[in-house]
């Protein structure tokens, strides 16, 4: 009896795998993986090594392991836990010897201003040339034509909530107001520990620009945040444990993280607030001090191949920025809020810019943040 069960399951599994394989090959024919020129491959293999500086505990490990296996190049990884930590490193050593790094849009803007990025050789990244869409490129003001960075995904902010504890019929769900204003979940709310994000999204909620440097508007934000603080359990940029152990019921996050949480806990829902938020990208860039530039180009092209990019997007739950990946992800993923963004919503979002990042905008944000945390 038991044996028959095992055999049936095995057959079902095999059938499923074959079905999968055929669909994958069908898609693969539609979206080919463009290889790098021979010249790049040879030089990369001569270099033999690749130093990556990226986020700790984020991208699926197989992406790195498969690259090593496929090309016989050893990857040495070094991690950071925030954009700020990352930028501080390059401020202190502009020639830090990394081949590929993964800042977010904000990190990249700062790095470009510091002059530590080198221009990409697009001929060595044919996948990026083929698969990056035109429409987003207009929004990415800081890098026209992706000359310095190849965005591997896009990100948007929102919140995750646990329907076991949070009343899912509340009409305010769908707005930033649900998170920022008075609600019955005091002490069960976490906010991201990110100054630009918490301030920026509050500005969006109040109907202002994400990048505002207007004193009156920012003072309104300050009052909103100071009132909110008594309800906040913690400012935490990676509240995974709190969410999954159901200590936090309402959690400010990258909206992709809510998909990620949902995979592990069924009662988690995600929300992409209607007022709009920051539109950001996570570009792969090559710093000036890179000792293995060919291997770096090879890696970027590998990550932008349809198959690897789909694997990446499904692993992290973020919005695909790749023409093929958008088609290749399963329907259940497309249905999750924030994974496929329409043009109308994109118009409500803003890319962070120098008004928030420098001068008065930065000074006032710092002051608000220091006061909030005091």
């Amino acid at each position, binding site marked *: 009896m038991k044996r028959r069960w095992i055999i049936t399951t095995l057959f079902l599994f095999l059938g499923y795998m074959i079905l999968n394989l055929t669909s994958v090959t069908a898609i693969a024919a539609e979206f080919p993986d463009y290889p790098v020129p021979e010249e790049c491959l040879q030089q990369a293999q001569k270099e033999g090594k690749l130093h990556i500086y990226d986020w700790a505990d984020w991208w699926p490990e197989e992406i790195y392991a498969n690259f090593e296996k496929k090309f016989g190049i050893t990857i040495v990884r070094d991690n950071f836990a925030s954009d700020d930590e990352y930028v*501080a490193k390059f*401020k202190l050593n502009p020639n830090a010897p990394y081949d590929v790094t993964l800042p977010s849009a904000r990190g990249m803007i700062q790095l470009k201003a510091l002059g530590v990025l080198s221009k990409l050789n697009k001929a060595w990244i044919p996948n990026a040339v083929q698969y990056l869409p035109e429409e987003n490129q207009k929004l990415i003001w800081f890098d026209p034509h992706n000359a310095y960075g190849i965005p591997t995904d896009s990100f948007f902010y929102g919140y995750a909530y646990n329907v076991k504890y949070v009343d899912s019929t509340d009409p305010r769900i769908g707005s930033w107001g649900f998170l920022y204003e008075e609600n019955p979940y005091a002490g069960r709310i976490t906010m991201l520990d990110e100054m630009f994000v918490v301030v920026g999204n509050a500005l969006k909620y109040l109907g202002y620009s994400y990048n505002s440097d207007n004193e009156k508007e920012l003072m309104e934000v300050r009052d909103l945040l100071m009132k909110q603080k008594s309800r*906040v*359990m913690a400012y935490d940029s990676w509240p995974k444990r709190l969410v999954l152990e159901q200590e936090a019921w309402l959690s400010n996050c990258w909206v992709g993280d809510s998909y990620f949480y949902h995979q592990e806990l069924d009662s988690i829902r995600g929300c992409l607030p209607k007022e709009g938020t920051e539109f950001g990208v996570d570009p792969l860039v090559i710093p000036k001090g890179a000792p293995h530039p060919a291997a770096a180009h090879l890696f970027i092209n590998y990550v932008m191949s349809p198959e690897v990019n789909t694997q990446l997007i499904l692993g992290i739950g973020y919005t695909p920025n790749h023409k093929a990946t958008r088609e290749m992800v399963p329907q259940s993923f497309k249905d999750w809020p924030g994974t496929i963004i329409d043009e109308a919503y994109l118009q409500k979002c803003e890319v962070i810019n120098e008004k928030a990042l420098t001068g008065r905008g930065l000074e006032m944000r710092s002051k608000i943040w220091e006061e909030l945390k005091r």
Partner: protein
Amino acid sequence: MATTAESRLAESSRVQTASPETSGEREMKRRHRFQVATYLGPIMFVQVLFVLAPLSFILMFSVLKTGPYGNIVFELTLENYRNLLDTGYATVFFKSIYYALQTNFVCILLSYPLAYYIARYGGRWKASLLLLIVIPSWTAYIIRLYALKTILGSNGLINNFLIDLGVIQLPIQFLYTSYAVSAGLVYTWLPFMVLPLYAALEGLDSSLWEAAKDLGATPVRRFFRVTLPLTRGGLLAGTLLVFIPSLGDWLVPHLLGGSKFMMAGTLVAHKFTAAGDIPGGSCLAAALAFVLLLLIYFVIRFGGRESLEQAL
């Protein structure tokens, strides 16, 4: 002729007798210098590389300017130090000092009886008992804090235990409160108070207690007139070891306080990262180091040199 020969002989003999002496002396001196270098060299090297060099970098950065994107501009300015007088920073510094004092005081209250009983009644268990105090420090500090998080959490050990006993119905929020920050600081730095106190108590001659007892001193009087004055060195050494790190602590308010409590260390980290102002952060760090140096000076001045020697 003879005299010159004699004098020459005498001279040569003097030279002969003198030269082995001086070379021996030189040899001794060289060996002494070699010994000093081998004993102190490695630690000097480490100190210069990991303490003095970073500190001088911080001092250097603290008088430089910040560019628009947070890049460091190599122009001298005292602007950062002027900004220190901002009342907001003073609040953060005083709060940190308050937390550090509180930690220190609670550590003393907990450590004295502990060290006293181990030193007096530990017997053959002394070594094992001390080991029990030290063992937690073998694990990384951050891992211990995460462990503490699971114990204090609303789904954690303490809350579940109290709920099972029926003492409470709903979990109490320990984590992310100022109490969690205080508890975390005490937990982390307690061994650094116990060990010097133990050393001081261990070195105390127990016949002094007997003498005091024979002369009719009550236990309280015995403690304040005999034990406390004689272990003052250990107490001050422990204070230095606990007060300094807890004043600059950043991880405890970050992990156990949910980043809602700003201590001096947090402020420095914020300046370095989110605010992107490395010179400003360096200036705060330099100010913090200055406060601590002042503290060490006063402890040496009023606590006596023996206290520091005991700490080392």
